[in-house]
Each structure stands twice: as structure tokens, then as C-alpha cells.
């Protein structure tokens, strides 16, 4: 129940806080009430039917930066 999965928004109706995501070829309706920044095409982490945040490409890069930092620190 605690696992959040990343998914892409394929349709969105901001007025009703409702969006559709594609999960391996299946469409699922989720709520985007918690992520006002989510838009068509956004990648979101989805948890129990709610998007809990928007993940951008630049942010994915942030992982490598922090891994490098950890390796340097312990080098």
C-alpha cells in the first residue's frame, strides 16, 4: 500500500482535479489535487490513486549528483 509508482499523465481536467495516467498500456483515473503543478505529459509519483508529486528530468539528474557527493565524501 505504501508503494508509489511513477506514471505519465495522458489526460487532465484541472477543474475536477482529475487526470488519467498510463500504467503499462492501461489507463487509470487518479486525483491531482495534491499536485497543482501537474500537467498533460507530466510524470508523477502515484500513491493510492493520488499523484503525490511531479518528477522532472532535471530532478532525476539530482540522484547522480548526490551519489557522486557521497562517494567523494567517503573517498
Amino acid at each position: 500500500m505504501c508503494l508509489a509508482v511513477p506514471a505519465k499523465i495522458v489526460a487532465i481536467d484541472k477543474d475536477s482535479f482529475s487526470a488519467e495516467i498510463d500504467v503499462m498500456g492501461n489507463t487509470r483515473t487518479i486525483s491531482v489535487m495534491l499536485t497543482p503543478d501537474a500537467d498533460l505529459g507530466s510524470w508523477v509519483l502515484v500513491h493510492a490513486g493520488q499523484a503525490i508529486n511531479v518528477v522532472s528530468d532535471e530532478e532525476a539528474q539530482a540522484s547522480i549528483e548526490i551519489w557522486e557527493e557521497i562517494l567523494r565524501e567517503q573517498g
Partner: protein
Amino acid sequence: MNRDDDKKYFHLMVERLREISKRPIKLMEVCGTHTMAIGKSGIRTVLPVEIELVSGPGCPVCVTADSDIDAFMGLARDHRVTLVTYGDMMRVPGSAGSLAELKAEGADIRVAYSSLEALAFARSEPHKEIVFLGVGFETTAPATAHAVKSAVAEGLQNFSVYNLHKTVPLAIRALLAGDGVQIDGLILPGHVSVIIGEAPYAFIADEFGVSGAIAGFEPPEIMAAIVRLAGDINAGAPRISNIYPKAVKPEGNVVAQGLLDEVFAPGDAEWRGLGVIPGSGLDFREAFTSFDAAKRFAVERREVRLHRGCSCGEILKGMIKPSDCPLFGSLCTPERPIGPCMVSSEGTCAAYFLYNDDANIVERGRP
């Protein structure tokens, strides 16, 4: 980021950990999803002998008290309501069977993927009382809050929540303050942190001198957390670090926090193994108490004697391993679970069983 990067950094982290591991260190992964990810990726097999990983209380199903399981089953039995729950709860045994068994006897019990599905049942079947089982930490609680607010907006009278939501930081505090095991560092739950941010963990380093790292769920992310924690422990410099910045903002998700604060106020909650932790639950605020199924149906929680020899409680505190439980793998298996730690897909016993994650399992003659 791609798979090649993942592999490369995983190996670099493993190498670095071997270099810096000099004395025994005990780390706890608080979250059940980490327990599963660790099992699945085989991380334990590459750790230096100095590093021990124990599992914590971060599986919402596992920490649900027997008395709560009995109470919501009583709702379906005595009040003939329709219970809607996340799938994980179906097979958790209470003192008188599980929801799955009750359903087989004819009770109206449905599995939903989200709280909004439960709301849809209430909308389309106005003659039925729909009770949603609100289970989970800060990650699922906003969805419950959202459903309740929608019910208010739509004037739905036949929807309520049996509310078992709990918050993670206070459980960590209880664990560190208790006299269980000595824990040197904590792998902190990534998705709970997406909601609550970094600040609620500050006390772990400030008051207890223990380090914590907010981590993601991919193998290199978990290994990076272990290296960071081992380094902090070696240096004697406890701190909380967020090494999952791609998902966790320092301030968390403020919209979700606002929603939680609007609908819930801190209340006492009973955790299996940890007992009642004051303030660790999420009670409905005054304006929303009419949605509290426990009040609507005057549910009485009866103390339940722990029986069946299940050691889930000790396991959730990181005091023993699943293989130390005499029932593990013999009488208690995922197909025929005796305790909640074996039922949930995030449960420690299930993870150890599924991924054969302990040398002792072989000795015990796993079927």
C-alpha cells in the same frame, strides 16, 4: 538516469562500503517498501559482515492492532455495512478470522485501489452504508482526507471512514526512546517523506544522536543511503540527509500537509508491538467527526490477548528476525499467514520468506 548508471553506482557504493566498514553497525529500514526492495535486489548478500539491516515498523498493515482488526470486522458483521479496503488488509487475521473469510461468509467487503473508489460506491449505492478502512501513513492519509472533503461537498451521508491512519516520526521516536535494540542509523521512508519533508526527522539526530537518510527504492539509492549512514556513524556526526531529492523536497508536499491539517488532528494510536503512542494517530477534527465510522456505529474496541505465538511485535521493533520466530516458514507462510507481518506485501516476514533472505531459512527447511 539509466540502468547502466544504476549498475555502475551500485557497484561503486558496494566497494566504498567495504572500504569504510570497520565495526559492527546496525541500520534499520523503517519502511516496508524498503524491506521488500532490499529483499528483491539481494542487497543483504553484498553487504560487508559489519553491516546489519533490521526492519522497522513501517508497514501499515503489520502495525495494525488485533483489536482494530476485530473492531472493523465487527462493523461488517454486526452493522451490515459495506466495507471497502486496500487489498493488503483482506487476509490479515484478527482473533476471529480475516476479512477474506468474512467475505466468503457473505459479508459485503470490497477491495479498492483508492479512497475515491470507495466514494464512488457511496455515490452509486445510496441505500448502502459504505465504510472505508483508512489505513496507512502520511502517504495514504491525504487520499482519505480528500475523500472525506469530497463527501462533504457532495452531501454524501452514507460514507464514513474507520480511521487507523498513523504518522511515522512519532513511531520512530517511541522506538529510539524504548529499550529495544540499539540502532545506529535509519533508512527513512521515501514516500512518506515526499509528503512530510525533512524537518519532522530533525529530532532523530538532535535528540538521539542517530543519523537518518531519506532514500529512494532503487538498489543504488538504498546502497547510497547505507554508505552515507556508515560514513556519518564513523565520523560520529549524526545528521539527517535527504538523498532522494528527485522526489522529496525539503519542505515536502505543502498542499498535502495543508489537507491533512485541515481534516485531522494528532490523536493516540495503538501500534502492534509498540503499544499506544500518544499523538501518533490522525483523529478527525471536530468538523469531520460525523465521518468517523467508529463514532457513527459506536464501535467498541476490546482488548485482545496476543496469542498464536506470533512475534510480529518484536520484529517490528527490529529486536528479532523473522527466522527467529518458531512459526516462520513452517506454520506461517504467505499462503497461510498467522501474523500480519507475513500477509502484507510490505511485511518483513513475507519479504524474508519470498526472497529467502536469511541463511537460517535453509536450515529451518523451508518447504
